[in-house]
């Protein structure tokens, strides 16, 4: 049985349907990547799993439990943490407070602590007293990742953590991934950068217009297949 799975997941915003029957599964210790063009529904999928968008209970299962209808504040308590698209640091909190709030109301029993986050991203310790939003984009992304890790999640959802960052910064951030996996988190990364996704993921799912159009291990997916899944066969 998978650690986390969606089952014929549909979701949307009001009358607008953004996901049409998405099935993905994540196993213990695994890293999967979700790729797809703008508007494909990647963020909607992440928000549905994280409980920001509520669904029918059976549409999302975690450790065998139906969690699709639970609100975000309960989902994170179960062990699913999200690094949201656009980082979303709290402007009125310092860097350190932004990190600490990730463990709100939970006693941190697990690998990740404030000190471990600082060991992972030493620059954050230097900057711990300044407002989170005064950092550079890459540093803010580190805070957003640390903030999610400090809750010691079983599943970490990363929504476009490389968006808008310079290649060398992206490399630094992805360099943290092995340690995150080692500490016991299964990871879902949403990426527009296909090369990056192929490098880090055990399996890749490509989405188009609210559906998964291609799935497989990176080595099994040809460039043409990805191109078709990404842009549609006609493109």
């Amino acid at each position, binding site marked *: 049985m998978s650690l986390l799975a969606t089952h014929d997941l549909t979701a949307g915003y009001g009358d607008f349907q953004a996901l049409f029957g998405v099935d993905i599964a994540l196993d213990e210790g695994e890293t999967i990547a979700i790729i797809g063009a703008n508007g494909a529904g990647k963020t909607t999928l992440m928000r549905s799993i994280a409980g920001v968008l509520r669904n029918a209970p059976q549409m999302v299962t975690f450790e065998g439990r139906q969690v699709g209808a639970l*609100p975000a*504040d309960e989902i994170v308590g179960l062990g699913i943490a999200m690094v949201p698209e656009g980082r979303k640091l709290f402007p*009125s*909190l310092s860097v350190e*407070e932004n990190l*600490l*709030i*990730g463990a709100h109301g939970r006693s941190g029993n697990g690998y990740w602590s404030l000190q471990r986050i600082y060991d992972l991203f030493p620059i954050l310790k230097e900057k711990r007293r300044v407002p989170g939003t005064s950092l550079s984009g890459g540093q803010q992304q580190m805070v957003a990742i640390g903030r999610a890790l400090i809750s010691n999640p079983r599943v970490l959802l990363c929504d476009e953590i490389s968006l808008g960052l310079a290649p060398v910064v992206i490399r630094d951030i992805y360099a943290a991934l092995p340690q995150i996996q080692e500490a016991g988190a299964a990871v879902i990364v949403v990426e527009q950068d296909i090369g990056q996704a192929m490098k880090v993921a055990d399996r890749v799912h490509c989405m188009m217009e609210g559906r998964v159009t291609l799935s497989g291990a990176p080595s099994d997916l040809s460039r043409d297949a990805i191109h078709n899944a990404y842009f549609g066969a006609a493109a």
Partner: protein
Amino acid sequence: MIWIDTIAQGILLGGLYALFAAGLSLVFGIMRLVNLAHGDLIVLGAYLILLVVSILGINPFLAAAIAMPVMFGFGWVLQRLVLNRVLGEDILPPLLVTFGLSIVLQNALLEGFTADSQRVRAGPLETASVDLGAVTLGVMPMLTFASAIVVIVALNQIFYRTALGRAFRATSDDPVTASLMGIKPASVFAVATGIAMIVVTIAALYLGMRSNFDPTIGPARLIYAFEAVIIGGLGSLWGTLVGGIIIGVAQTVGAAINPEWQILAGHVAFLVVLLIKPRGLFPRAYD
């Protein structure tokens, strides 16, 4: 030196206005809710203290300490059952609901306590004063001012030094992302309103001891509170104190020139500050 005396009285009066305003400022800062019933809640608190004093025969300060948890609970329930349901993108529904609450409270108090004006008796404290040479200051106004400082320091400690305060600020910044951290915005808001009601009880204590009150005076107190909050810059508690002081000084100076100018002078000072600094004296850096 009559002017020094006048200004000193005005500064102390500002403490009272800051107390009226602190709860309003707290709630607005956290959930962008303008509570039009804030003044009536202060009056409700004053009646509650009066009730405890007359039933138990204890002094008003003790009575206020008893009233505090009751008011906290009232605020918590009010937020959970009513206000949380109307908070959202649109700021109009909460305005309408708190306006309605104001009317409900006034009428309920009228039913329960009649329209007669009341006072919480504080004994010799009411008239005690200290002669400081140039000025003679009433003990009650000084206590009020000191209480305002204590309230602001305490609220700032909660806000900036505790996990609860961190959750307040995060929820105020972005409730959706806050929920991703395990924070329940609805309960954070309920606790915030509960704390605001404790501050309201302190304001009610001084309102009740310093002047007569009846069920209808809430809205007038609300105006001063509003002006103090807005002059101070929305969301800054020290700014609220400064705003209260400006209005207080303007009122006492106005009254010294001509007793009929007291209220008007406060409002004029409010408008002048807004003309010069439309976002208040200590606005937040972002919004």
